[in-house]
């Protein structure tokens, strides 16, 4: 019994961190935000050369044969860096769902492209037809009731819309669904896609909360008021301590979810519900503390803080709100207790 990532996983994490901190500085991120929908990625090739997008593609299709547990630390780094790419959709949901539920043809056509980092995937699994990177993705994974469809770009009609985080490149999408797009008519497949999305987003949120905490810590050490660093004021210290606690709690659940998904445990969905709910709340608390403790400066567009604040606010509701996941969790655990 050992609950920690292993050395190789930490080394991969360090490599991703190194690349992201070099290639995705706040100034870089700012330029991307200014470009919005027109942004053309210069980061993606770096992630491809690191082998991140291919990690979960089966070896038979040229991928890394990895499991969610191999990617959890990397996704935390992506959240930490505020990565403006649909890494969860492309690097996690798509390879997992395609390799498990896709038709032979879909697998043969798309898995090698995913492994080569040549396809960007978006998803539309909820009720709204609001899709991050919807106008740009090479394919969109779409849920319709109990069906999953794999919709190539040619069958996607996307209307870009403005959101608080321009780098999410939101679009309202309509899809031409048919027998040719059907991936699986199977609630299990839908659930696998949603679980993967919620898990991946929870890892992003933990990294994001971590970044907000560190940025705020740095500011508290630097900013002087009343003749001393404001980080010496106990009410501020305690507030950030509470965020750190919530972040570590969420991280612990997210790690477990990565393990349960990798093992295909019976409680994997339950683990994902807990991970996403806890990560939502950690990100919420981090957001609240970060802006408040930065004071006015954090409210300006010119300060970098808001990239993480706005991304976090969007991700808090992507792939399931806290209430959604807790309701599902209650249904699951209470079915045993009050049958």
């Amino acid at each position: 019994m050992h609950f920690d990532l292993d050395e190789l996983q930490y080394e991969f994490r360090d490599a991703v961190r190194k690349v992201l901190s070099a290639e995705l500085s706040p100034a870089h991120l700012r330029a991307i935000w200014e470009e919005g929908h027109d942004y053309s990625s210069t980061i993606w090739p770096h992630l491809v050369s690191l082998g991140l997008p291919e990690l979960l593609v089966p070896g038979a299709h040229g991928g890394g044969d990895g499991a969610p547990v191999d990617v959890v630390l990397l996704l935390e780094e992506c959240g930490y860096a505020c990565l403006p790419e649909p890494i969860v959709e492309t690097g996690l949901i798509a390879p997992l769902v395609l390799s498990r539920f896709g038709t032979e043809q879909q697998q043969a056509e798309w898995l090698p492209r995913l492994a080569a980092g040549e396809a960007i995937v978006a998803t539309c699994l909820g009720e709204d037809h609001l899709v991050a990177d919807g106008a740009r993705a090479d394919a969109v994974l779409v849920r319709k009731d109990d069906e999953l469809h794999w919709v190539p770009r040619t069958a996607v009609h996307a209307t870009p819309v403005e959101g608080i985080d321009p780098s999410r490149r939101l679009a309202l999408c309509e899809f031409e669904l048919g027998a040719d797009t059907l991936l699986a008519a199977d609630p299990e497949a839908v659930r696998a896609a949603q679980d993967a999305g919620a898990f991946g987003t929870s890892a992003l949120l933990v990294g994001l909360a971590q970044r907000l905490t560190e940025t705020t810590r740095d500011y508290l050490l630097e900013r002087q008021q009343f003749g001393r660093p404001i980080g010496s004021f106990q009410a501020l210290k305690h507030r950030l301590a509470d965020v750190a606690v919530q972040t570590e709690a969420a991280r612990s659940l997210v790690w477990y979810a990565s393990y349960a998904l990798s093992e295909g445990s019976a409680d994997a969905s339950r683990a994902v519900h807990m991970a996403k709910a806890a990560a939502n709340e950690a990100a919420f608390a981090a957001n609240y503390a970060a802006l408040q403790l930065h004071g006015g400066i954090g409210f300006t567009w010119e300060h970098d803080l808001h990239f993480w604040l706005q991304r976090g606010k969007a991700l808090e509701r992507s792939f399931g709100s806290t209430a959604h996941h807790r309701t599902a969790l209650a249904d699951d655990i209470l079915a045993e207790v009050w049958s």
Partner: protein
Amino acid sequence: MDLRLTPSQTDFRNEIRTWLEENVPTEKFQPPSTEEGFARHREWERALHGAGFAAVHWPVEYGGRGMDPINTAIFYDEYLRANAPARLNRLALGLAGPTLIELGDADQRSRWLPNMLTCDDIWCQGFSEPGAGSDLAGLRTRGEVSGDTVLVNGQKIWTSHSRFADWIFALVRTDPDAPKHKGITFLMIDRHSPGVEVRPIRQMNHQADFAELFFTDVEVPVANVIGGIDNGWRVAMATLTHERSSNLNTAAHFHQVLAEVLALVPENLRRDPVVRLQIARFHEEIEAYRYITLRTLSSLSTGKQPGPQSAMGKLWWSEMQTRIFEFGLSMLGERAELLEPTPGEKSALIQSYWLSRASHIYAGSNEIQRNIISERVLGLPKGN
């Protein structure tokens, strides 16, 4: 205790109501930051002034109606009820004017007050600085007094309306060697003076409600000093007292906010006990705020020292309002992040949400509010 209006209050209420019903423009104005919008707002303000409603809380001799805080609140409740245009010269009528009336000299009053009422002069506030923040007295904008002139150099931040303002009431440090609170001077600065520059601040919510002011060798006559050189802290404290009795953040206003959010609750959640408990709590909190405010207004109107609740209003409404918006965002679900309002939204809720977060910081951060309550109301030791 009697919450009915007195006959004279009823008369006043009816007078306002009737006048507003007859005069409030039906079309929505452009924002005052546009030329067209500014002209329309000023026209409206002059109509208000013509009817004697520009500053009902000012003494009659200065063009007001001499109304006590209760009557003033009645005015603003009617104003909100009539859906009348946003006030154009809020900082003049609410802060600069009352400060002048209290601590200005006769020349200063006659020089500035009339143009406030007519909106010939629009005013903005120059208190906050980037380096000062919650520590207002830590301000560093310099004012060198030499002869009849104060030479101002420095920077102010978080001014609102400054893009179309004509005057700035500002705090500058005239004695850098004096203890922090002693060397400050309260100064009226002509915004059109050479050396004054305004730069809008783009906010994280994709809007720009505030600006920065830069002063480079701006010459201000010593005659523009209020309350004497190096005596500005006392004047500023008087100004801030007026800030606390703002008439914008009323219970009626927050009920409007809540009603807008309730319109976003989807049909299938309207029987959800979680949703309903939250709404009940918001309603309760707004009503609590109503009576917190009314207790203070009642004390002020009868010349009594207001109770402990008078220190608590800003903390209460600012955090409550954010919770209401947060609830609204959860009702919007994934669409909450959109800058384009979804059906039912008056404007993008997420933008109001972020703006509401700023209210936890401005006008004395909520941490400062809690310090004040623990020290002044509870009598706990200062510091930390």
